[in-house]
């Protein structure tokens, strides 16, 4: 069932341990979110999968075959790097065509559809493209494939919200075709929206893996409240964090697994406005660091 399996991958650069015993599995037809702050080891892990780096120890299985024993495993991979650089003198169209030829993919109708969808002007030279446009060229090229595993490293930085949505739609479409997707990001909301499961990496180590709702114990949700009664006593509760008042609004962060307790406390205070903001990665890590301190 697994499309990609990483077993105990370790990679060091000098004295820095960029990936430390990294293991996870991506199932077939699954969108897997890979999150962590910049420099946590996301790109190092991905670059081992695509063969740019050789791991010091551990192994990688694609479709249950060790990639070191399969010279053609890259036929099943399509990849978009985080920082896309293209050939300045080639047009976007030429680059997309090049990757289609290399990947032996012939569906030009889908290509035209994607160009339309991402609103790319393909006749321009790559050196005149903005970062967002270069990203579009790479994304379009990556979707034009029969590969079973798509790997995106920070795919939406540089895309505007509309294009971000187009990207999400295409990811969902790839999933519906049975493809697996590895989606690396430091934006939790994006991963949360798309992913079936996630792994969190910090300082080279995987610290959590699982369904996001299983992981909800480590997240906090921000609530924005207005109420008829005095809200200040909320600040004293153990599951309420970063209490602050902004004009009419009161902002609080609530441990996700204590939502029930929080709402029960809130109800008697006669709330007139209740708005939630999705959890942010920083909040997760904040919680994590606090947890680490408590444990030590």
């Amino acid at each position: 069932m697994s499309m990609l399996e990483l077993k105990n991958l370790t990679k060091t650069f000098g004295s820095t341990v960029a990936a430390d015993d990294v293991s996870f599995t991506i199932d077939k037809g699954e969108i897997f979110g890979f999150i962590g702050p910049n420099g946590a080891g996301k790109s190092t892990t991905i670059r081992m999968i695509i063969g740019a780096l050789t791991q010091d120890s551990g192994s990688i299985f694609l479709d249950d075959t060790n990639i070191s024993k399969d010279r053609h495993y890259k036929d099943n991979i399509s990849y978009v790097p985080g920082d896309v650089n293209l050939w300045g003198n080639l047009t976007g169209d030429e680059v997309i065509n090049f990757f289609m030829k290399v990947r032996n993919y012939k569906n030009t109708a889908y290509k035209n559809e994607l160009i339309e969808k991402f609103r790319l002007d393909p006749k321009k030279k790559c050196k005149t493209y903005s970062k967002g446009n270069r990203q579009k060229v790479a994304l379009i090229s990556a979707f034009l494939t029969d590969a079973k595993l798509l790997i995106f490293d920070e795919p939406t930085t540089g895309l505007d919200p509309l294009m971000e949505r187009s990207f999400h739609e295409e990811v969902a479409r790839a999933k519906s075709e049975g493809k697996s997707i590895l989606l690396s990001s430091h934006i939790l909301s994006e991963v949360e929206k798309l992913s079936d499961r996630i792994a969190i990496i910090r300082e080279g180590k995987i610290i959590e893996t699982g369904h996001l709702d299983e992981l909800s114990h480590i997240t906090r949700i921000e609530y924005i409240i207005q109420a008829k009664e005095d809200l200040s006593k909320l600040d004293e509760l153990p599951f309420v964090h970063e209490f602050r008042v902004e004009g009419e609004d009161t902002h609080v962060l609530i441990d996700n697994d204590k939502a029930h307790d929080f709402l029960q406390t809130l109800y008697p205070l006669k709330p007139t406005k209740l708005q939630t903001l999705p959890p942010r990665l920083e909040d997760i890590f904040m919680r994590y660091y606090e947890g680490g301190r408590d444990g030590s």
Partner: protein
Amino acid sequence: MRHYLSMLLRDTWFRILMWLIGTGGLTLVVPPAFDGLYSTAAEREALRATLDNPAMVALVGPVPPGEYTTAVMFSHEMLVFMGIIHGLFGIMIANSISRKMEDQGLLEYVTSAGITRQSIFGSQLVIGIGMNLLLGTVIFGGLTIMNIDSFGISGNLLYALGTSLFGLLFFVITLILAQLLPASEWSFGVSLSLLLLFYLYRASTDVINTDYSVISPYHWLSRLEVYSSNIYAWLWPFAIILVLIAAAWVLFARRDLDDAYLKFDLHKKTRNIRSYPRLQMTGMKVLVTSWMIGMILIGLSYGSIFGDLDSFIGDTPFLAQAMEGESGTNPLVQFVSTLILVTAVVGAVPALMITSRIMTEEKSSRLELLMSTRIPRAAMLNFHGIYAALIGVLGIFLSMVSMYAASMAAEGIDITFGDYVMAAVNYASPTVLLVGLSMLLIGLSMKLHIVAWLYLLYSFMVNYLGVIVGIDEVWQQATPFYFLAEVPSENIEWAPWLIILGIGIGLGLAGLACFRRRDVA
């Protein structure tokens, strides 16, 4: 302007420092070396006679009148040749702080922070003037401190002023091109072409009639007659720098950022780039074409002087003797063979540039994107190696053919078309060796690749200087060229040819094996 200037300096000081050390060092090691090599006036006269022939005039300029002292010898052999280096210094730095920064969006960025156009242009100028002034001071100071006989203070000053103004001239020319042309590749390419074209133009007019050379700034350096007559008046033509500065400012002030006065809209049609080789060949088209034209020009310019060589060598017993060698062959053919050898070393430059291209892919992390597809890494490097060897050999072949074509009218040269072809064949194997070395170094580490360039530079110096100053043979043994026959004065020797070729292929294969295993940056 102070803030922008200090930021620019922090960004460029190291490169400037490297250039100062390199250029200053290269200039200052020569006088003591010359001083020991030719201690008597008779020896120097003999050398002067050697240099007074069309081939050498084409390389270093006309022989100055008056006594040929060590100092005059220094300025004669160095000034024009070092002009290329000083010019390159100006071009590289000017381009990096003008059009390149603009292409990267940095100029727009600092403009938005309230830095004015005046500050930007002013800072660029200050760097250009400052760095050349500094280099001039280093050279003047160094020459004066060494205090070698016949090196007068006035001559030292003139040498330093001449080279500094030459560097500044090309700095300013690049600034103008940075306004005219749409991208930094263009401004760099065109200014570099101007630097080389002025040199080649002077090379031919110096041989034919120096009156025509006056257009070329290199000739102004020759006319300074440094250390003999010290004609300061020939610094005046450099006053054109002031006009060029004014022009560059007007052009810069009157255009939008990222805009250009000359724009080219080439290939509108979508090209069909199906494979990695095709991708790279498209990307290297300009590089390969310009080098092939360059190789043809080198062949033509050498070939066109062969007619004058004959009478010249006959009149110069020193040279005739030097060129005769053990085999007792025709000295003229011997001389041509040496020129062909130097041409072959130059022909390896485009080959190394082609292998280096894969590192450009790697540095820009495009290699990572490419290798995430089914294209094997080793296949990519392998393509660069084979293409480099083919283009390297083609370049040598083209220069041989054009040398033959240009020398057809010359009498008394007993070299057939077949001989030229065999010469090209002869130097194919060291080209493969250099390419193989380059591939091995790329396979090991990007940082090591500089060794390939240093080795090529070394081969060039040894084989080029070897002709002029008769350098010790031990130095030549470290280059593959030493072991080959000097075609066409000798017949090709297949045994060393095959061994060198084999070593080259072996190095290349080792490079492929290493490259497959190492981490991609």
